[in-house]
């Protein structure tokens, strides 16, 4: 039986201050520091080889949850247990430098993800091939279209990722053909490497195809968690009722 690789227990994340403050405010009474709760008491488990869809409206806490799992934010309450796996947050354009070439940005992003030179060298041809940017890879990325930029950053993320994938709205890049290729790649990585994936997206059909389970967040709270088809159906009904 597949084991749990990521477990979130009653995870709560609060933003105390959205911006740094001036001295006057810093030493004033703490009225301005009312925390904003982005996630409240969220629990779930991700099993080996499983793809979990993360759905919810904008501002519901999807990105915050992924960042908390990736170690970018620490939970204010609860805990996130990573059972002997590493996690990679797949998001678009990690620290791209506009004036550098696509090839140089592969190195820059790869190093930012903690990859070694050897790992980057081993994957660089696959990254260039998958992104379909062979003719443009030595041109500065400032000359790229938004689709080319997104294809390159997605390719870097998936080929240099290690462990479980955390995908934040990164599946809807490029044209339809590239989207299909991206989904196949995610499925392949999840199955072959026996890791797992958490995919945040507004594309419900995509999630229905990719995921076995889904988690619906609403205003930072867990609204529903279970079989993907059932959760997505409930979410669709909710969205439909809101529009009427």
């Amino acid at each position, binding site marked *: 039986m597949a084991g749990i690789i990521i477990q979130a227990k009653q995870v709560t*994340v*609060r*933003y*105390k*201050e959205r*911006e*740094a*403050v*001036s*001295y006057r405010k*810093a030493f004033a009474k703490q009225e301005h520091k009312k925390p904003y709760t982005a996630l409240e008491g969220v629990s779930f488990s991700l099993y080996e080889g499983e793809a979990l869809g993360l759905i919810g409206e904008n501002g519901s806490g999807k990105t915050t949850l992924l*960042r908390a799992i*990736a*170690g*970018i*934010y*620490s939970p204010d309450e609860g805990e996130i247990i990573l059972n002997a796996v590493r996690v990679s*947050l797949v*998001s*678009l*354009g*990690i*620290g791209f*430098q506009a*004036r*550098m070439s696509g090839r*140089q940005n592969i*190195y*820059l992003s790869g*190093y*930012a*993800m*903690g990859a*070694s*030179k050897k790992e980057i060298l081993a994957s660089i041809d696959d990254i260039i091939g998958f992104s379909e940017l062979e003719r443009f890879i030595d041109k500065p990325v400032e000359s790229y279209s938004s689709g080319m930029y997104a294809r390159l950053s997605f390719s870097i993320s998936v080929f240099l990722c290690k462990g479980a994938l955390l995908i934040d709205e990164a599946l809807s890049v490029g044209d339809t053909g590239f989207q299909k290729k991206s989904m196949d790649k995610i499925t392949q990585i999840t199955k072959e490497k026996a890791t797992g994936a958490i995919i945040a997206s507004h594309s419900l059909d995509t999630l229905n195809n990719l995921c076995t389970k889904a988690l619906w967040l609403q205003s930072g709270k867990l609204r529903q968690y279970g079989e993907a088809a059932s959760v997505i159906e409930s979410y669709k009904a909710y969205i439909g009722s809101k529009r009427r």
Partner: protein
Amino acid sequence: MRFASDFKKYINYALYSAAAELKNQVHGTYLGWVWWILDPLLYMAVYSFVVEGVFGAKIENFSVFVFIGLSAWNYFSASANSSVSVVRSYRSVLQKAYIPKFILVLIVMFINFFKMALSFAILIAAMAAMGLKLQLAALCFFPLIAVYSALIFGLCLISAHIGVYIADLSNVTVVATRVLFYFSGIFYDLKELPQKLMPVYFYVCPTGFFVRELRACLLYAQPCDFKMLAYWLTVAALVSLTGLSLMYRNENSYMKAV
């Protein structure tokens, strides 16, 4: 332990990022990388003109004297001023990938270290052209720069940490470094300061100490004061450990504040 493994894992990012930033700084300029050489030379010319020409100060080999001071000073000042806001500057990267925050301080330091190293290379070439030969004591340059770098690293870690929560610190740092500049003997001899301050001065003013020692070993062929260097090494170790501890304990909440 964690510092060592993080350092090994992310040092390539720090080096690659610093190189990219250096190229960015001169991108689109007519003279390109020549500015890295012209910058300290022009400053040296200005200070030499003002202090020697206008105020009539008489210090032998004054241009070399000022150049050593300025090169060491700029390394400290530029690193300190950039570090305060470095977490905010890298916000977009930090929201997408976990990067140990001390690496950002290293990026800033690598950029300024490169400029300082270039300045000293120019200085040594200029000294040779002027007939000023380096003596064995010049080897003290290396331990001096190593301890100086460790101290700057520690101070920058602490200022980067505080700068996340108090944006105004960048303004304060600009003023503080300006004050320190005038107290560090960059364009005058520290002998001109009240001598009763001297026993304390070198224990509290790191830039004054390092500037004096670098001049001593490069220009006056005198070995450095190892006792004082050991003192500053201890301070550097304590400050760096404090800075690293602060960063590791708080770095996961930085992204909520910037």
